[in-house]
């Protein structure tokens, strides 16, 4: 069973608010379209406002871009001190070795594929999608996670891989320490 993930809900709400603001702006402009305002005045006010609009987007961009760089999901370092879980995808199966770890273990998923591109999507025991990484033939993608919560995690394929893509599932168990 899938459930809404916490960060996803926050992101969804931010998007919904922005979408509604855009819709409101278009309604207001659409209503004002029927009025008669000189183009000179529209130019004067519009360009004044446009500079602020550009500045706002630039500031927002720098902030968001900067913050995002502190939270990149890419594995770094040698992985020492981490339990390496070898993940292999193939049409249409997942193989995880080992298939279970104790809660709180720092895990490095070493993900690859034996045939086509697959997507390793990890759902926690509550059904929240907590992250994904691609499984590519000929390459190893490394994903570092600490799985604090005990239970059965579900893996779904997140890259179109052929006929049984939607049933390519497996589980990964995190036991109580």
């Amino acid at each position: 069973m899938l459930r809404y993930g916490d960060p996803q809900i926050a992101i969804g709400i931010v998007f919904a608010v922005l979408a509604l603001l855009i819709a409101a702006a278009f309604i207001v402009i659409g209503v004002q379209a029927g009025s008669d305002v000189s183009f000179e005045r529209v130019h004067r006010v519009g360009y004044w406002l446009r500079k602020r609009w550009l500045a706002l987007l630039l500031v927002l961009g720098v902030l968001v871009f900067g913050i995002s760089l502190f939270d990149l999901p890419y594995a770094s370092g040698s992985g020492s001190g981490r339990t390496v879980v070898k993940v292999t995808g193939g049409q249409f199966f997942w193989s995880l070795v080992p298939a279970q770890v104790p809660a709180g273990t720092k895990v490095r998923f070493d993900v690859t594929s034996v045939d086509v591109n697959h997507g390793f999507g990890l759902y926690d025991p509550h059904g929240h999608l907590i992250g994904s990484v691609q499984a590519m033939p000929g390459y190893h993608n490394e994903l570092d996670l600490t799985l604090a919560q005990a239970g059965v995690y579900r893996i779904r394929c997140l890259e179109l891989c052929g006929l049984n893509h939607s049933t390519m599932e497996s589980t990964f168990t995190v036991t109580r320490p």
Partner: protein
Amino acid sequence: MEASAATPTSAVMHPRAAVFTVEARSIERRIGLLFAVSGLALVLLMGLLGIVMRLTQATVIGLSPGWFYRILTLHGAGMLTGVLLVMMGALWYVLHQTVPLRAGRMLAAYALIMVGALAVLVATLIGGFGAGWTFLPPLPFYPAGQWSTWSESAFFVGLLLVDAGFFVYCLDVLEQTTNRYGGLVRTLGWQFLRGREQTAPPPQAIAATVVAIDGLLSSAVATAILAGLLGRTYDRSVGIDALVAKNLVYFFGHSMANLTIYLAAGAVYVLIPRYAGRPYETTKVFVAGWAGSLVFIATAYSHHLYMDFVQPTWADVISEAASYGALIPVAVITIYSMTMLVWGSRFRWTLASLLLYVGLAGWAIGGVGAVIDSLIPINFRFHNTDWVVAHFHTYLILCVVVWCFAFLAHLLERNADRTTSRAGRAWTVSLILVGGYGLTGTWFLAGVLGVPRRYAVQPPGTSGYSLAGSIFALLLALGFLLLCLQLIPLARGAWERRHYALVERTDSWTGGHYTARVSRDGAGEPAELEALPAAGLPYASPPQLALGAALCVVGLAAFFPQVVDASEASIRFHHLDHAGHFFFGVALGLLLGSLPAVSRRLGRRPTLGLATVIAAPTVMMLLMVPRFYEPLERHPFEHALFHLAMAAFGLATGLAATRLGRVTGLLVAFLAVGMCVMFAAAMT
């Protein structure tokens, strides 16, 4: 904006628009209608397939996964081709008024694209090909019993033809805009930006030039990967580097999908002012914004590879910056400026103008969803979920498809000199908005829930979203049906007005008066623009010729025995050496073709030049599979001949490129060599 032949006052356009609106020529109307009607027919058909897929996910229809994926593949490729056709026609329609684009080239592009679309249709519906329109290698070669080699080949050939059609279009646009406005720098408005000139080309010309350059880049990348995959269908020993192939596929796929909306923007710059009665003119901010778009369109694609952790992190970070950067020209220039034109303009609300306006909002809202997903930490939890489906359907359905209809409505309204009823417009647009945003809303919710995209069978407990989505999709379909029903009387009116005029006559026998329908002869149209000959040669001065000669010398290195021996170390190096031979040929061709004496003997021959620059590198890459060259390499003489053949293909490409003028010729030569290098990198 030029107003050499102002249109008479129109009942549908703003009265002030007569000052700056140019009367359309019959060739513009015909090309516009041909592309709009063909493209929209494809869009509507693909839309129906989309509803079938959504109903399958809702378990209302019991489509098998095999059929689901072949329909998914066709839906993606067909929809993209459909909107591409309409938008190519729309931009041509507005650009041809000031730039002498060639109708013959446009019809050749049309034929290539339509034949390509047919091949894709056959490959999917009959051949069962279902690897998705992004066909991530090596999936096409792992069919799980669903398709055979011929359908792989038909699909790749189909996309190659669509790609070739777009290449022809972009090449003609770039050649004619740069000829018309005096070189690339002037055409992009950069001389104006730097204050060295007082005027700049009109907005649609700058937009078209940017689209043409990025379109040529993406076409070249597509040709490289598709030729490689086609080679793999007849030589199974060819290996594929999954990461390089993915980069090439997404560069091409992302750019092509993105360019449909940028093509549209060029047309919208001309169409919205006609209803607002305010001209849209090139400013320095506009030029700077489109310079940014030129870079951002080509660099944002790597966000499709965020979850391929072996992709260099710098590429992902650049892509994140480019994806956000792409938002700025769109939000600050296109959308904002268009709303400035609309504000307080006593805007003429017609079917076309309403759809144009609604489309602006669709681009803004879908764009926000896209930018959110382009942030790496967020993409970590949204990658390949329904969120992705949601945001691109928002700007494709509620902006691009809506603008496709807006363009057709504009053509018909303008020719019929009337629009539809206010109530009809209100119902139509309300249904499209409720159905469209309802449909994409269910995908956004499913994305927040983590539902994976492209699932024939939805995860347990989530089919309710698909059912709700299906209901909204049916409302959307109803809206588009209503829209089509309103276009029919407009088309009839346009046909009548275009072909016949009502005139008062006197009967010579009885002396009575009567009204007669007389055929129009097309009189009063602006004169046809003469196509401009290719301007300049790639190397125009002695220093440039010396540079060309130096490049030939560099290219000769590919024939050195030491280099040839070293290239045997791996297939990749071997193919790179072949690319080196090709490079030598191209360099030599450019040099020889630029010599005035040779150029005179070659004659203009722009069409032969165009055909050769497309065919020669493609055939060269198709021959670059071990099945062909390995038997030859056992004999030194035949081996040397094969390498010379590679150079000969290059020579033909280089000579042909000189027939396309300085800017276009140099770019095409660079792309041809680039294609061979990309091929070498992807095929192992």
